[in-house]
């Protein structure tokens, strides 16, 4: 199991943070373009889901396959996470986990398929790292790409310590 990369977007679509660990394939476009593309997709998925959901504001987990037979849509109906909308999607090779706060901060993590729902992990990154080291640091300008070394270091060690971080032995 492994974690590929991690993005934080603010509510205006700026990418506040990006880091990667085991990313074998690069997008082949500039990082700026990649962030825009990623955000645009997330934005569209959100509105797609809120329009297509047959039930009001229940969570929806979309599983998009890279080949046709893998296209599955799962609508999970747990009331626990009601109103949360988009949670994750997966293809044949990786899984994208998504967490959005009511203030519009979006945390996105790509992992391999073996990793279970990362909501708790993403929420923890938000509350113990983003809020602690960015929001509470008055010198960090909100809405700009994060320059805090402290945050970067803490995030890196947090991710590396995750039980599913290590690359599976070949």
């Amino acid at each position, binding site marked *: 199991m492994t974690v590929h990369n991690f993005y934080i977007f603010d509510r205006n679509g700026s990418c506040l943070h990006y880091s990667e660990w085991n990313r074998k394939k690069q997008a082949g476009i500039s990082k700026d373009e990649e962030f825009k593309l990623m955000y645009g997709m997330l*934005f569209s998925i959100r509105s797609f889901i809120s329009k297509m959901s047959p039930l009001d504001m229940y969570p929806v987990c979309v599983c998009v396959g890279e080949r046709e037979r893998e296209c599955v849509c799962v609508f999970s109906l747990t009331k626990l996470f009601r109103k949360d909308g988009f949670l994750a999607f997966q293809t044949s090779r990786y899984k994208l986990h998504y967490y959005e706060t009511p203030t519009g901060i979006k945390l996105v993590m790509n992992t391999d398929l073996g990793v279970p729902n990362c909501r708790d992990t993403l929420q923890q990154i938000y*509350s113990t790292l983003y*809020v602690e080291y960015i929001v509470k640091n008055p010198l960090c300008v909100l809405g700009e790409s994060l320059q805090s070394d402290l945050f970067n270091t803490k995030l890196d060690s947090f991710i590396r310590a995750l039980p599913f971080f290590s690359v599976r032995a070949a």
Partner: protein
Amino acid sequence: MSRQSNRPTDSKKMNSELFTLTYGALVTQLCKDYENDEEVNKQLDKMGYNIGVRLIEDFLARSSVGRCHDFRETADVIAKVAFKMYLGITPSVTNWSPAGDEFSLILESNPLVDFVELPDNHNNLVYSNLLCGVLRGALEMVQMAVDVRFAQDTLRGDNVTEIRMKFIKRIEENMPAGDE
């Protein structure tokens, strides 16, 4: 998978007098720096706003409150969760407008004014105006434009302290710019 948060759920308790006195020193300094009360009110509101836009993140991280779907729910969360968490008081929510877009927070006690008496030459000073800014800033970050002001203030001889909140509009999320 469910690693528990290391953060203690109970926030660190601080002596509230230190907070109250620091706030008092801030207002005093602003009164020296600016000539009229209106300007001081404005500065307090502005500072409060800057606090609010950050405080909301802390609040959401601590309370795990989700998105509110109407203004009544918002009012409840503000009074019962947020005021309790940060000021240790629970204001009552009253005086709803018929349309449900306006309500009042009645503060039995205002921790900011514990040691304050307003001198006669500061008739227009809204001593706790920082709170209005905080509320406005925090709600703006969760897509609510709200007008907040003090309607009554015990410092000015009213029986209670009343903060009036009026919902203006929902702030729509923008489509990212330059996205084709």
